[in-house]
């Protein structure tokens, strides 16, 4: 689950991590109030207005602006709230900004006394350990740093049986070239970040930039935090942090039926049981001359209700010119799925796009007979190869 910057910072603060303080707001009036409040609380006289969306590169798209008067806070908040923010990570369609974070400015004092670092914690799948990735080249696109100057990226792997040990935290601070108070503050900062990562059951904490201020504080100016969906069972309080306005409406609808759905941009919709077979089916659609409109795994409990919900979600996409249903029945019985297809057809009414149904496995023959006898205008197949040929035929005719 992705969190907004302001949510991530709130959680990190609970672990003693120093963050750039601020207040998240949804209106221009509230933005001005937040700026005044920061002035009273933190003696802020320069503010940063930051769009809160689930995508990076916000500054590049005009979603982060500095204001040095309250009038300018108003002006910037007016510009950013409600804008359609396009960044390198949002895709061309962009994302609507519903919230802004009014934050204090941390770039006070002389530029030469400040420095931006990069820091993240995530799982290294190869080593099966959590790793802290860090660099003195912060504030910019870390993938670019990794590609051009890999020697400037450091990694520290942590034993799962222990916390981040003090010698490791010291090594990180030394590798970043820090001394004195800044060194001590970095040791504390990275120790707390790692503790937060483990205790929050995060899958990613990325702080870019991690700022050394001109008075040697180490501060999280940004925070990208992802929580492990599997671990929400033991962190029920975090379920409220989900922002469904950030998700595709069709994906939100699908999740209500326990369907694993991802919207894509092609012309052939598909409904499959199992994630691997679903991806393979998408590949097959492409090889057959089509292009997948979605990923949809109906899971191990495909029944009339889920099949109908899947149909409706796929059909809500006007780009869809054909639908392929590919079920390999194991525990899922094909005759039940066939009944689901027949029911869905009757409930939805007229379905104008051609449907290809491939049912294989448990009771496949019974299912095919049911479909054939139902009078539904569907193309039915038993082997995957036949289904691929039917996709080619249908796409060519569309």
């Amino acid at each position, binding site marked *: 689950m992705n969190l907004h910057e302001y949510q991530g910072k709130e959680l990190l603060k609970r672990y003693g991590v120093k963050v750039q303080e601020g207040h998240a707001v949804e209106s221009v009036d509230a933005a001005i109030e937040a700026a005044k409040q920061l002035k009273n609380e933190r003696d802020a006289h320069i503010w940063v207005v930051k769009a809160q969306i689930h995508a990076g590169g916000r500054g590049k798209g005009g979603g982060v602006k500095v204001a040095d008067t309250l009038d300018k806070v108003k002006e910037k908040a007016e510009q950013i709230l409600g804008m359609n923010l396009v960044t390198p990570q949002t895709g061309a369609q962009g994302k609507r900004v519903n919230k802004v974070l009014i934050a204090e400015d941390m770039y006070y004092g002389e530029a030469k006394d400040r420095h931006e670092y990069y820091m993240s914690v995530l799982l290294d*799948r190869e080593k099966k350990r959590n790793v802290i990735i860090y660099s003195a080249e912060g504030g910019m696109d870390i993938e670019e740093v990794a590609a051009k100057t890999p020697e400037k990226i450091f990694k520290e792997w942590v034993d*799962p049986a222990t916390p981040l040990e003090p010698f490791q935290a010291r090594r990180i601070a030394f590798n970043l070239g820090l001394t004195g108070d800044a060194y001590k503050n970095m040791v504390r900062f990275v120790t707390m970040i790692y503790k937060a990562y483990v205790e929050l059951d995060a899958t990613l904490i990325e702080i870019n930039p991690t700022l050394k201020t001109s008075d040697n504080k180490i501060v999280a100016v940004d925070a990208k935090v992802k929580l492990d969906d599997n671990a929400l069972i033991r962190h029920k309080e975090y379920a409220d942090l989900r922002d469904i306005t950030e998700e595709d409406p069709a994906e939100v609808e699908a999740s209500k039926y326990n369907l694993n759905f*991802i919207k894509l941009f092609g012309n052939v919709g598909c409904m499959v049981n199992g994630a*691997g*077979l679903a991806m393979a*089916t998408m*590949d*097959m659609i492409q090889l057959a001359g089509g292009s997948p409109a979605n990923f949809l795994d109906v899971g191990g409990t495909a029944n009339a209700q889920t099949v109908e919900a899947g149909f409706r979600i796929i059909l809500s996409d006007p780009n869809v010119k054909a639908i392929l249903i590919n079920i390999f029945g194991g525990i899922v019985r094909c005759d039940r799925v066939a009944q689901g297809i027949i029911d869905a057809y009757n409930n939805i009414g007229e379905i104008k796009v051609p449907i290809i149904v491939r049912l294989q496995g448990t009771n496949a023959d019974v299912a095919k007979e049911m479909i054939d006898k139902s009078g539904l205008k569907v193309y039915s197949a038993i082997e995957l190869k036949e289904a*691929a040929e039917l996709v080619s035929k249908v796409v060519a005719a569309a």
Partner: protein
Amino acid sequence: MSVLVNKNSRIIVQGFTGQEGTFHAEQMIEYGTNVVGGVTPGKGGQSHLGKPVFNTVEAAVKATSADVSIIFVPPAFAADAIMEAAEGGIKVIVCITEGIPVQDMIKAKQYIAQFDCRLIGPNCPGIITSEEAKVGIMPGFVFKKGTIGIVSKSGTLTYEAADQVCRAGLGISTAIGIGGDPIIGTTTRDAVELFMNDPETKGIVMIGEIGGGMEAEAARWIKANGNKKPVVGFIAGQTAPPGRRMGHAGAIIGGKDDTAIAKMNIMRECGIAVAESPAVIGEMMAKEVKS
């Protein structure tokens, strides 16, 4: 022969009396699998499906000499069940549970490394040795006895491949579903190595998907060990949108071998026959074995 499990394996079910455990244990027994008992804490001393129930794995192993365990325990407790199985003396631990928190699996993986055991999964369909032992949730009827080993990250794609292999006139020695989670016990390479060393297995189907570097690792191992048996490979996710699962920084680690196309190229370079479409896995395997 075959690998990991056979008709002599002595199997216990952890989470035996739960809904999932009960349903699949029944199916396993019906297939002819030698299920010798089960574990449900607090229900020790009872009998379930005609088999004894124990409070702990340790007690179950002592009483039944079990050497294989299959786990149907809810996600919050599954990593603990894996550690209990390892400590209790189980040699092959198959964890079906989906949705185990990553931090739990990191700990469990390190903990079980001190024992002489092998973990399959989690989040996997299990293992089946055709017509001998089904330690998993796969539809048994698809797997006809034969000489092809299958290793796969995905459940239904394993059944699909097995079905095609059988229709092509071959059969399956053992199929291993290694699971799709970021942290798993047995890797593609481990499974391939088992098949390469199994005299009964004459060819291998290796099915992977986007993410991680396991298929590339297995492919390089196959080449380094002289391509002793024909291997057909398939990678699902050529059309998957990038960046939907891994974070920004995640691309730094293992990023280069991550995409379907990159993996397929590495497999080809290592002498593996790559199926572009999932519909031709069976016929390609038949061709490879005959040539």
